[in-house]
């Protein structure tokens, strides 16, 4: 008598090993039937053992499936993050035109970070912050900021990206009321400017890990892109082209 009926013979390596052990489990029944006395208790016990083994295998497969699913979701997130960073990097370095670079910075902030108020400053030789570009804010208010003032000034002084906690102190009065983060731009280790991000889009409740990656990318790549555009302008002016 075969123990592997179509119902009890599952596919897959792990379950095969369970199935192979079944003939031994039902040996008592075979002996009993040879004696002419069917041993229903032994059969029931063997089937119960088989059921238990199959349940264990199913549970194991479910766990593996969950692990694969989690790994897949993780890879998808990683893929999505890499795509975003690639797009940001590619967009910043595909031109030497300053106006296009500034537009790209805007697009990265609006479309990839999800922020609706932003100012880009450059650091003047006297340390003051001069507004280079902005959107969603009163340009007059942010035209020129003193060095060392508030969280933006601190970020520029320390060269560290500053993310503002809700209700956190140190803000420069009304100027930084809705400040979310400040990213100092660094070229060759020197702070050459800063991006101040204010209100996020309504559907974006908080900054994510990917946003911090984008900030780190902007910190150096936007600074380099702007520096290259300045060099290009100088070369153009020297050669009497454009500028």
């Amino acid at each position, binding site marked *: 008598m075969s123990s592997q009926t179509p119902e009890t013979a599952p596919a897959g390596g792990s379950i095969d090993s369970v199935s192979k052990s079944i003939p031994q489990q039902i040996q008592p029944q075979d002996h009993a039937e040879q004696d002419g006395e069917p041993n229903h208790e032994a059969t029931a016990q063997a089937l119960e053992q088989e059921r238990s083994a199959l349940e264990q295998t199913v549970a194991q497969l479910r766990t593996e499936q969950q692990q694969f699913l989690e790994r897949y979701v993780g890879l998808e997130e990683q893929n999505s993050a890499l*795509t975003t960073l690639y797009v940001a990097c590619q967009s910043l370095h595909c031109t030497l035109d300053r106006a296009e670079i500034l537009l790209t910075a805007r697009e990265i902030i609006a479309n990839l970070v999800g922020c609706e108020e932003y100012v880009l400053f450059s650091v003047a030789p006297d340390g003051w912050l001069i507004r280079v570009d902005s959107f969603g804010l009163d340009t007059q208010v942010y035209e020129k900021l003193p060095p060392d003032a508030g969280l933006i000034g601190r970020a520029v002084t320390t060269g560290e990206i500053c993310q503002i906690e809700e209700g956190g102190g140190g803000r420069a009065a009304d100027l930084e009321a809705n400040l979310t983060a400040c990213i100092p731009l660094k070229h060759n280790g020197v702070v050459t400017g800063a991006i101040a991000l204010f209100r996020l889009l309504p559907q974006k409740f908080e900054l994510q890990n990917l946003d911090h990656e984008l900030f780190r990318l902007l910190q150096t790549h936007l600074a380099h892109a702007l520096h290259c555009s300045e060099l290009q302008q100088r070369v153009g002016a020297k050669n009497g082209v454009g500028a």
Partner: protein
Amino acid sequence: MRHKKVLLVDDSTTALLMEQMILRNRADFELIVARDGQEAVEKTLAELPDLIVMDVVMPRMTGIEACKQIRLQDHTRHIPIILVTTRGEPENVEIGYASGCNDYVTKPINGSELITKIVDLIGAEEDAKQ
């Protein structure tokens, strides 16, 4: 099997590149692009895409207006449209649906969400044809 033709409409180079990367990475689509609503209407008539992913705020013609124009034409009224909105408040979403869009996504675009919606809408369109 024929590749599904998807028209991507956005005036932002960065947003367009992002959408192209998402769709190129994960599925077998033929991608065509337009840079504003007017060009989107023209390309829709010429190319008859299987689906349109369109930004709302654009020069010359907005995504909302383009959506209405596409719905007015017999040849194009059936084409599923996903609007990409910067602001996800209910009033903005309602304006989008009133213009005739089938679904919407908000910025920053979530790749998985966009793919799921595209696949759902293209599948539903195929079912409707059969």
